[in-house]
């Protein structure tokens, strides 16, 4: 009997929380909605066109124009390739290094970690020129996938993320594994990685989205139409005399679609993975 009012007030709280969340969601989703609605309204040849929030008529014409005028499939392929490779390298190397920094005590780990982290604090604008000189003048790698991938193959931010995440995993299991005389890599591969799945899924999504949205570096380093990523392609996609707003939004939607698909497909796996972390105690 006693639990009744408590349960009711909890339900009330949940309802309020739900409403608040819903409002916030609507607020933040507006740009996406605008993008979608804009891509479905025909707006040919008008610079000043702004889509109506509630469209009168829908049309796929902007998509037709976008695909007809661009090498969009090739750009999507490039983005997919680059982002996939970057996701694999980042997840693997960042979790390896993050694990080492968090759980393996070795001389100099503090110093090395701080040197890595402090370079994150230098704005990209000034390192662009030296990096460009290195990549183009020294290594002669302009207009290649390698050049797009290498500088962010494993980002310091991701190592930091993994270090933080790994440090919340139970140390006791590692000790147990060590007593069982497992090699360190085997411990990492067999014990840590499975434990860290939720973190890895998060890292994978973040890396994929970030590399997919990366614009400036691929833009600088590629020059042929065939090597552009979708973001670079979108930016270069300028129509004749005026910007075709509808086709631009169609492009933006096409550019965002693969990420949504990836996100929703990882989402399920990601929810399963959460319980695995709860062994500590």
């Amino acid at each position, binding site marked *: 009997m006693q639990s009744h009012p408590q349960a009711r007030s909890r339900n009330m*709280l*949940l309802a309020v*929380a*739900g409403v608040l*969340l819903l409002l916030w*969601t609507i607020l*933040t*989703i*507006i*740009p*996406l909605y*605008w*993008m979608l609605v804009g891509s479905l309204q025909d707006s040919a040849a008008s610079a000043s066109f702004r889509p109506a929030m509630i469209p009168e008529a829908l049309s796929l014409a902007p998509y037709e124009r976008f695909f007809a005028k661009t090498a969009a499939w090739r750009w999507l392929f490039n983005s997919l390739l680059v982002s996939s490779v970057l996701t694999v390298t980042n997840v693997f*190397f960042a979790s*390896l290094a993050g694990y*080492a*920094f968090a759980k*393996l005590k070795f*001389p100099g*780990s503090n110093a090395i*970690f701080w*040197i*890595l*982290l*402090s370079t*994150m*604090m*230098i*704005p990209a*604008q*000034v*390192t662009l*020129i*030296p*990096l460009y000189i*290195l990549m183009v003048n020294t290594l002669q790698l302009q207009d290649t996938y390698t050049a797009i991938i*290498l500088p962010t193959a494993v980002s*310091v*931010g991701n190592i*930091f993320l993994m270090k*933080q*995440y790994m*440090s*919340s995993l139970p140390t006791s299991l590692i000790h147990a594994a060590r007593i069982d005389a497992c090699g*360190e890599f085997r411990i990492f591969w067999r014990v840590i990685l499975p434990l860290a799945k939720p973190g890895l899924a*998060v890292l994978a999504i973040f890396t994929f*989205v970030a590399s997919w*949205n990366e*614009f400036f570096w691929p833009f600088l380093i590629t020059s042929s139409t065939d090597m552009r990523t979708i973001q670079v392609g979108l930016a270069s996609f300028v129509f004749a005399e005026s910007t075709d707003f509808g086709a631009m939004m169609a492009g*933006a939607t096409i550019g*965002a679609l693969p990420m*949504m698909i990836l*996100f*929703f497909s990882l*989402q399920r796996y990601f*929810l399963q993975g959460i319980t695995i*972390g*709860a062994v*500590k*105690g």
Partner: protein
Amino acid sequence: MQTTASPKRAPSGSGRFWREYGWAYLFILAPVLLFLVFTLYPVASAFVMSFQQYQVMGSTWIGFDNYKHMIGDDVFWKSIRNTVVFTIATVPVNILITFVLAYLIFQMKNKAQTFFKATLYLPAVASGVTISVVWLAIFDPTDSGLLNRFLGLLGIDPVIWLGQSSTALFSLILMNWLGSHGAGIILYLASMGGVPKSLYEAADIDHASGWTKFARITWPLLKPTTLYLLVTGIITSFQVFISVYLMTQGGPNFATTTIAYLIYQTAFQFYEFGLASAQSFVLALLIIIVSVLQFKAFSSDVEY
């Protein structure tokens, strides 16, 4: 971080040393190598540049002139002030918003959780350009602007949001508050899911209150995540550039000129790469100091 500060010395012989630590070094080898070539080398070059008048065909060494020039520049100090104001106004509020949203979502049933996580993360997939187009429409200074129409309903006169010194920076802050918190929410939720139920059950047995459970169990275990969000939040907010570039170009009257925007201007509008490098290193120093303070404040009881 702190607790690893005093690693055991390898007792004797390098063989033993490598047996004990070799793996750790091997684990960080690839990232460190990539880092040396593609990050440290450009950073070092930029550092050298900060003492030069940069020229493609041969730079001239000018010692501390760039730094001196920078210190004497009013705009530089104004940009520091703006950046600090922006950071103080956005980072803590954003973390609070993120935490509250994540906490609310955590109370939901599985399906609702999935829905909110997905929808709140989705805005991250929209490109910066799309978002700025929408926000420019929201801040439209005429009576037809979304925000001004809303104010009109409340009987308030239209505001020239981005056009006057008094509201421009605030407008960018507002835009940042309402931006995407999806990434932070997902991180918090992952950590919240990682908190063992047994701890709560044990607390229930002790008749601990909701607040005690939060303060004693939830919050301490979420500290690494909070620290991560704080440090990365500060780094990105100290380097805020895109929204300034797309929305206000630093104006009006330098009201929204941040250091990162000033560095961009110095480098790409005035071709003063040496000076831009000098500004960057001052910015980096500032962020490093703030980050170290945070690590100090947080790491006392964070488990590593």
